[in-house]
């Protein structure tokens, strides 16, 4: 932020500064709100709205302060005069705004305005009075000293200093309802200091060496090839992306009509054309879609290789299942798919089979990984391409329809009542939402 502000103050390139007339005093080096906005818009090639926003943020953080109405830190894009805060008061100096200083400031204000402080300031003043009662005399004395010193300055300087101080305290002690721009969230990096330094043991070095060896030996693809991959991915998925290409019949959030969600429900009898197309993009897309997976299972059934998919599904269950279930699941999978003469024996190559069977002696959740990968690749390279070329898939593609775009309502302000959609937690088994259920509305889970 400082970078921006410093460049703004640059005499040649910065914002045009002139002497402002404020009531009867003349303040030098002041700028108008509109000038600030213009300069920002020009320098960063952004829209007025954004420039205004950026300027407002600068004001909120106290880098620019208004001369006329210093109670609220806002940027007004008009003739309102502003001035740049002196670096002494910049928030980044991290000069802790001490209670004592605040007390002195409030005391000065109290004396000057003869007891008419703003409500919250009054509260703070009283609280501070209680807290640092012992030093109160010091506070009052300091306050009076500073006021006396100030009186010896020119009126213009006095005004400026007063505004500077006021802005500083507005930022550091914001009134109750204003956002506190200095708030940062929970402290970070707190662990770095207290972290136990990793003992540089032999293990540590071995791991480091291993990591570096892998890193140096890793094959890297040329970035141009990777970039081409992005282009083709984005190009392929573009029409499927509701935020880029819109969605038919209509975006349910915009039109309050959840026909889109009904048509694209996880288990629906008639998938849309876009959905069926997606199954052809990659094997993973096909498997992730319940309808696609079901059709693929049918197809495999016709080819008498349905056990492959079942085996893969069982392995997935093992990998992501509860820890306690691991031994029973492994046994079940063995019985059903791997044991010689099993009901649904899967055809894995002998080496993988041997390794897997050995690993079964000490079952853990990843023991079937090799076998699972083998079957997955088998399906991907063999059954999947055949599925895409099959009559079944072509039939699905032809049958699938493109929903019509809903016509815009004649009376768009007709307010449809919004009902919460039934939560998945309520239903024991996932059921296709009926047409009667309404839209997940504003009283969601938030």
């Amino acid at each position: 932020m400082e970078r921006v502000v410093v460049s703004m103050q640059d005499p040649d390139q910065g914002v045009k500064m002139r002497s402002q007339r404020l009531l009867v005093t003349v303040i030098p080096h002041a700028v108008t709100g509109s000038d600030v906005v213009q300069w920002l818009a020009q320098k960063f090639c952004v829209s007025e709205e954004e420039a205004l926003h950026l300027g407002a943020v600068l004001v909120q953080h106290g880098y620019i302060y208004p001369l006329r109405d210093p109670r609220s830190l806002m940027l007004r894009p008009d003739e309102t005069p502003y001035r740049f805060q002196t670096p002494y008061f910049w928030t980044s100096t991290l000069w802790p705004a001490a209670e004592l200083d605040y007390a002195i400031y409030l005391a000065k204000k109290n004396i000057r305005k003869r007891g008419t402080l703003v409500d919250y300031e009054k509260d703070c003043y009283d609280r501070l009075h209680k807290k640092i009662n012992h030093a109160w005399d010091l506070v009052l004395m300091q306050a009076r000293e500073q006021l006396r010193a100030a009186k010896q300055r020119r009126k213009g300087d006095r005004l400026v200093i007063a505004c500077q101080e006021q802005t500083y305290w507005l930022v550091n002690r914001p009134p109750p309802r204003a956002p506190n721009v200095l708030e940062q969230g929970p402290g970070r990096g707190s662990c770095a200091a207290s972290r136990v330094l990793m003992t540089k043991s032999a293990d540590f070095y071995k791991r480091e060496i291993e990591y570096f060896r892998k890193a140096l030996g890793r094959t890297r693809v040329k970035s141009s090839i990777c970039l081409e991959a992005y282009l083709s991915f984005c190009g392929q998925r573009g029409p499927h992306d509701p935020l880029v290409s819109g969605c038919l019949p209509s975006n349910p959030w915009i039109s309050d009509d959840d026909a889109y969600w009904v048509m694209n429900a996880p288990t629906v009898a008639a998938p849309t054309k876009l959905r069926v197309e997606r199954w052809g993009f990659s094997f993973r897309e096909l498997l992730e879609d319940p309808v696609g997976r079901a059709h693929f299972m049918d197809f495999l059934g016709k080819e008498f290789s349905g056990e492959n998919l079942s085996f893969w599904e069982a392995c997935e269950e093992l990998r992501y299942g509860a820890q306690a279930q691991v031994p029973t699941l492994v046994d079940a999978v063995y019985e059903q798919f791997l044991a010689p003469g099993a009901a649904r024996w899967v055809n894995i190559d002998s080496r993988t089979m041997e390794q897997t069977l050995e690993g079964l002696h000490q079952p853990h959740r990843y023991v079937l990984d090799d076998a699972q990968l083998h079957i997955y690749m088998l399906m991907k390279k063999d059954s999947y391409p055949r599925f895409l070329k099959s009559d079944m898939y072509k039939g699905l593609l032809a049958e699938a329809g493109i929903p019509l775009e809903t016509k815009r309502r004649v009376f768009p302000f007709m307010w449809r009542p919004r009902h919460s959609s039934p939560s998945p937690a309520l239903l024991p088994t996932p059921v296709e939402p009926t047409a009667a259920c309404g839209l997940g509305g504003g009283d969601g889970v938030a």
Partner: protein
Amino acid sequence: MATEGLHENETLASLKSEAEVGGSLEPRRLRLQRGTDYGLVLPVHQVAERVEALGQFVMKTRRTLKGHGNKVLCMDWCKDKRRIVSSSQVCHEHAVTMPCTWVMACAYAPSGCAIACGGLDNKCSVYPLTFDKNENMAAKKKSVAMHTNYLSACSFTNSDMQILTASGDGTCALWDVESGQLLQSFHGHGADVLCLDLAPSETGNTFVSGGCDKKAMVWDMRSGQCVQAFETHESDINSVRYYPSGDAFASGSDDATCRLYDLRADREVAIYSKESIIFGASSVDFSLSGRLLFAGYNDYTINVWDVLKGSRVSILFGHENRVSTLRVSPDGTAFCSGSWDHTLRVRGMVFCFPVCERREDG
């Protein structure tokens, strides 16, 4: 004994020097990672010149959710695309009062039947969702993860039964929900880990995490080892998200930039930054096709970037305090942003002006 496990010929000193050799090559490798070495890498926007520019986007806020009484810190979508869970500063989320002040992470289970959340209490707790008004949700809470510092991010893996967490103590960990057992822990970050994301890959075995040490690291869930590391950011990495194809990921950081790292090329391939953006990015997410990158910033705005061209598509205002979290819905129809101004806004695209007139053929 300190020298346990060493072979006869190895000594601590020799291992150390070997590691140092590897370490000296690392900085050179890391320099190669920067996307700005024009001699070595093709900036993505040059390749993307032939791609049509996106039109002007107009996004409108469709829902403003005001249930929270305090700053919204984190949110997640349910797989049914309509519900979200969000967490905030004053322990109030879905009528459950949590015994700590900052709930910084929350996640929806894939089945939609449970949520996980955690924060300054150093724990991750799982709450099964129930809509029985008489039941006290807090009573059924299960405390799953235990860290030695605050919990910054959590996420369910493919099922309801495993949770991956990232913590301020510099580690990530994989837990079994049922028993609360630690399945795997991931050490390697030099400072707080702030974010994580699971890879959408076929074998489903990796995830990426970003931390205060400016590094983004890719881990193998099975072995607990770090597979790749990227260190080109200049400040804390607040958020990481995988590109939909799983071959790359984007990160948003306090240095006011978002960067795209490619996993196969093992380098940074794009930087999304603008001079006028001077505040850090707190949260990033991709649209469904990966063409758009939405990033929420600490200056209360959301910038939408064109991933391929590296340029900004639009800037969205509306929040009155910093945007702390941003997620695109699972079916890509809208995205939701949560902010310290106590609201969540769901935005969808209303219409898109084409850049130039398209001529009809025939």
